[in-house]
């Protein structure tokens, strides 16, 4: 209940800025300490969805048009959200790879990463708590 209240609090009070620093996070028990930009691109573009040690990953993303999604992919790949959506419509509707699971808010991603050992997601940097691990940071 406390976590739910925390999540609701964040949802109401946190104004998501399109220019905030973004932290890429994993479960605290994940042995990975860092990840390269290329490995992150491979994971979020569905090319090779695994951590650097070869373990399969579960990628978390936001629903289409969430304010954090465009800046994240632009910083990571140099492509705007329309290009990313076109790319994923190629991958998804061809049945090659499942797209990342999508969530409506950073708090739900944070909550799910706490509970999923092989998950990876991204949240505003000042959203990060001590019970997840930051493995990559995108600075504004």
């Amino acid at each position, binding site marked *: 209940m406390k976590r739910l209240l925390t999540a609701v609090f964040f949802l109401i009070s946190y104004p998501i800025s399109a220019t905030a620093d973004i932290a890429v996070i994993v479960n605290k028990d994940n042995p990975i300490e860092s990840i390269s930009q*290329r*490995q992150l*691109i*491979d994971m979020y*573009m569905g*090319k*090779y*969805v*695994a951590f650097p040690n*070869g*373990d*399969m*990953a*579960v990628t978390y993303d936001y629903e*289409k*048009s969430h304010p954090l999604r*465009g800046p994240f992919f632009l910083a990571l*790949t*140099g*492509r*705007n*959200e*329309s*290009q990313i*959506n*076109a*790319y994923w*419509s*190629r991958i*998804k*509707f*061809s*049945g*090659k790879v*499942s*797209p990342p*699971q999508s969530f409506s808010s950073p708090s739900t991603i944070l909550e799910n990463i706490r509970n999923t050992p*092989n998950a990876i997601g991204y949240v505003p940097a000042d959203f990060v708590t001590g019970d997840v691990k930051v493995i990559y940071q995108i600075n504004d």
Partner: protein
Amino acid sequence: MRSVFICLLFLTTFSYGSDIDFSGFATLKAVKTDSHTAKIRESISHPHGVEKDELDFSFSSLGLQAEWHANDNVEFVGQLLLKEQHDDQVNNAIKLAFLRYNLNSNWQFRAGRTGLDLFLMTEYRDIGYSMDMEHPPVEFYSIIPHQNLDGVDLQYRAPLDQGIASIKAYWGRSESPIYSDYKFFWNVELKSILGVAVQYETLNWLFRANYTTTKAANEHEQQKQLREALAQVPLQVWPTKNELIDSLYIIDKRFTYSALSMRYDDSKWLVQSELSLTDSNSSVLNRLKAAYITLGKRFDLNTLSFTYSVAKSDNEPSVEPGPLVPLPELIQIYEAASMHSGFYQLDQHSTSLTWRRELSPTLALKFNWKHTSADHLPSAFYLHDTEQFSDPDLSFNTFTLSFNWVF
């Protein structure tokens, strides 16, 4: 396959608490042409062609997809594509219905109905939003109507220093309709499809090679009747009849498809090209070569792209010379045999210009102008105004306006 899809829908509908994803894509498309002979279509599986002075919306479509994630390794995917078609509507509408099993991050196995992985754009050529060009080039994409494989595939993927390399092998069968003039319809069945696709991909580059072989599993009733009728004709009256009979027998004839593809996309510039060779040990289809290149430039929300595409076969009309005695019955056989043996006699090229405008991150508007020069008509690419065969227009324009949406 229908039962597989119904099972999939059942599973996705009743799997409470599981992770189910529903999504889709839609295209609203208007097409206009100035050709008075060729009725424009995007594939030889289209039953309808757009005539001169007609504003046509029949290439519009709606796709719906359901994915059920049973666990981290197992998923079921089903996709329905609703568009104009005349025959076996449910079976043809099922584009995907397969189980995907990710053994680990390197190996993936799929079983059921998947995309038939012949082309770079095989599995998304119906999804207008996914590409900058208005539609896949007709000269390259429209001659093979088969888009799906009922079978299995196995893929191995490995990260290398700069990119991801993969190899995929697939096996199965496929069927698809072919429509032609005079209300000709044939549901073409391919069996023993065996193929391999090798790919190397970085963020901006993609290289791909494909080799696929298959056999024809059925023939059109008209071909059988023609062979039987030709068998009755004395050799002195029609000296080439035996070659013609042989060319009209297609069952178990082997067809091969080889292709090389590349794509470069750095978010501002786009270059995409494919080369293919389709061949068979039947005289119906001899060395059909096809290629295209697309060059595109993005300006903020706008993309301009130019495409040149070409198709040429080595087919010669095996029906010539016809019967030496011009009896009406023989002329009728001659005309029907001409249509069959000349179906893949192709030689044409086209240039096209597409303007794409992003209206939102999920909605795009595209306008395309295409100029086609054909060596001769009739052509398998089109349906025809058969009354104009004596005066074909070998150079014509096509205009297309479309809205593409993903949801």
